[in-house]
Every structure is written in C-alpha cells, then in structure tokens.
C-alpha cells in the first residue's frame, strides 16, 4: 500500500516544483515532472494502483494549475494506459528507450491537451509557435525520465523492503505450532 501513496506524494510534489520552476524560467523550459512521475508509476506499480495514482497526480496538477479541473487527470490516465501498453512491447526499464518514449509522450500529451481544449473550450491551441515550444519541452523532459524512473523504483523497493522486514519480525513472534 505504501508505494502508491509515496508515488502520489511524489507526483503532487512534482506539480508544485513545476509551478515554482515556471516562475523562474520560461514555461517551455520547465520539464513536465508530473508526467514523468505518471510514467514511472506505470512501470513500477500494478495496473489498478497505477490508474489511481495517475488520476490523483493529474487531479493534483489540475488543482495547482489554471487548466480545467479534470483535464490533466484525464490525460494522465490515458498516458498511463499508453505507457503500460508500450511497456508490454518494449523494454522501458532501460534509460534510452525510456527517454525516447518520454519524448514521444510529451508530444502525445500536448496534442491530448489541445484536443481536450478543442472539445471543452472550442479552440485548438496548437499553432506553429506552440509546436516549437512543445518540442523544446519534450527535449527538456525526456532526459529526466530515466532519473525519475530510477527514483520511483528505488522508493518502491525501499518501501517494499521495509514492509517485508516488518512482516518477518512479526512472523518470529508467532507461537510455534507443533
């Protein structure tokens, strides 16, 4: 139970950090950290826990951002399903494939945002200028994917280990049945 909670907290923290970085640098130079946490969640968690984490992280990002409430949550769910689908075909545990996939996912996510904006606000916000900034954002985000993936894996392993250790301790206190 602990790893999903930890990844949710990591995802929400990522959204807050992203907002702070956007104040210090142009928005397109800020990596999409909450997307990377969702990507990592898809790789290290089970499908049900991953879906709940993705939706919660997306909703958290919606709450600290000016987007429609639910917009990023919807996209994170789709990102997660897509990542799990691709992870079944390709080995996304290695750095380079993961970075390449993250690069593609930022583009897909961008078009998803634009599509939802068209659907709910009646405007498709992607023009030539936005495509360039989306490309820059993808290039900035992709190299961080292996790092965030490794961090998420490490956090989950540590929490799983501590849980297993506690279970072992409890096991030794049991009465021996003969």
């Amino acid at each position, binding site marked *: 139970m602990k790893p999903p909670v930890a990844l949710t907290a990591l995802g929400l923290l990522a959204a*807050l950090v992203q907002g702070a970085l956007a104040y210090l640098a142009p928005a397109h130079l800020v990596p999409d950290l909450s997307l990377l946490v969702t990507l990592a969640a898809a790789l290290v968690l089970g499908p049900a826990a991953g879906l709940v984490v993705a*939706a919660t992280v997306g909703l958290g990002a919606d*709450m600290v951002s000016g987007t429609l409430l639910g917009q990023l949550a*919807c996209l994170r769910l789709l990102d997660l399903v897509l990542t799990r689908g691709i992870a079944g075909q390709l080995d996304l545990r290695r750095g380079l494939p993961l970075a390449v996939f993250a690069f593609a996912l930022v583009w897909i996510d961008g078009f998803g945002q634009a599509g939802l904006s068209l659907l709910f606000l009646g405007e498709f916000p992607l023009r030539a200028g936005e495509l360039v900034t989306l490309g820059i954002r993808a290039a900035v985000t992709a190299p961080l994917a292996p790092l965030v993936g490794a961090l998420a894996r490490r956090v989950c392993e540590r929490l799983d280990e501590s849980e297993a250790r506690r279970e072992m301790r409890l096991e030794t206190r049991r009465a021996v049945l003969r």
Partner: protein
Amino acid sequence: MSEFLRRIRLPLLFAALLLGTLALMLRDRGDAAEERHWAARALLELAAPVQKAITRPILFVRETWERYVALVDLHAENEALRAEVARLEEENLQYREALVTSGQLRRIVEMRRDFEVPLLPADVVGEDASPWARSLLLDRGRSSDVRSGMPVMIDQGVVGLVSATSLHAARAMMILDRRSAVDAMIQRSRARGLVRGLGTGELEFEFMVRGDDVGVGDEVITSGVGGVYPKGLRIGTIRSVSADRSELLHTARVEPSVDFGRLEQVFVMLRRGPTMELLFGGGDGDLPEPEPKTVAERR
C-alpha cells in the same frame, strides 16, 4: 459471476476514473461561479509556501550573483569608489527621499488614490505548472479578504482576475490566458471591443467598428462594461490590425502594457465588479463596498 467481475475490474476502474475526469471538466467549464472543492483549496494553500520555499532561495542566489559575483570585473574600480563612500553616505538621505517621490512608488501611490478601493499588495510566488494555462500563484488568500472574481493589477495595467482562493493563497488567471476576455475600448476613438488572451505573450482585440477607428499605436483600456474591471485601466497597445475589410469582425494584435515576465508583486483590488458579485453571490465575498469611482470619472 465473481470471476467475471474480477476480469472486468480493471476496465471498469479505468472507465469510472475517465468518466469522472470528463464529468469534472464539464462541471468546471459550465459553472465558473462555483468556488473550487475543499481539496483544491487545501492543495492551493499548500502550494504557496512550497513554491515560495523553492523560488526564494533561487531568487536570492540569482540576486546575489547579479549583485556581487557578476561585478567581480569591477573589483579594480572598487578601490576608486571607496573614496566616494563618505560623500555618498551624505547624499543617501536625499536619495531615499527622491525614491519615495519618484518612479514606481509615486505611481503606486497615485494608483491607490485614484481608485478609492483598497488595493492589497501580494507577492507572486509561482506560475502555472501547465504551459497551456496562464495563471499566477499569489501569497494572499481569504484571510486577507481576497475572493474569486477580484481584479488584479499593477501600476502598468491589468494583470488578470482572481480565479481560486484558499486561506493564505490565491490563483489569478492572467489576461493572457485563452479563457480570458476583457471588454475594452480604444482610448483615442472610444471604439469598443473584446480583448482575448491567446495563451502566448500577446492579446487579440476583436471589434466591429470601421477599421480606421483602430490604428497601430492606439492605447487599449478597459471599458468598464461587463462589470468585472473598472473603467480606464490600461491593457496594452495596438501592434497590428487585420487588413481584411470584408469581414464584419476585425481583429488587432495587442502588446500588453504589463511585462508579465517580470511580475514580482501585484495588487488585488478588494472589490468585485457587479457581474462577479452576481455570479458569486453576496455570502462568500461580502466586503466593505466603497462607491466605485473610476479614473475617467474623477478627471
């Protein structure tokens, strides 16, 4: 039956979450007047100190770098300047006085006097995490009487509108946001139209009058119509006008008067316009209401 349920559990969970997010989007789009859920307010409340904690050290280091380390080339000149320190100290008092009576401080004082509405200074502690929306995170919230729908401005002009609040933080949608629309007019010809955000650093002015009533270099100000912003606030300057005379609706590109890339402190006008008051109702945002007086009316 249980085997069937176990098999469809995941698709069911996915569909439920997806439908939930779509329902949230529909609700958020349709009901602009509703304050956000308590969980959203709680996260917004948490966002301000966290983002402040991240940005402040970086800003401090940046300022220190600019002030001291970047001046390392001027080290040689420091020796000569030391001789002037005594004289500068004598002049220091005069400089302070000059600072108060000139520049930005004077403009701010004039602005506060012009509107006769309490203007609350608020620090900008963060920007939108999403590049698709343009909003600011402010360090003042409901405890300082900030409510959704209140205009946000600086001495250069309109910044935007408070869109969400928590106890000690608020989110303000900038006029650059795609969802922003401000009823505006040309100061010279009084031609009226609508200023829309493009999501980038520019604005678009939509108008229906003759093309020559709007020209490059014209100042665009708020019209006061719409009951959101007071009349006479600067929005920007016309940069180009669409040449197509066959269209009924003309458009012009507007360069905002506010430098949105350098916002550090803004002022929240502690009064909601009549439209916002109708939308939000009196209960949530009852504030002492001075008689609205605009710059134009005062003059």
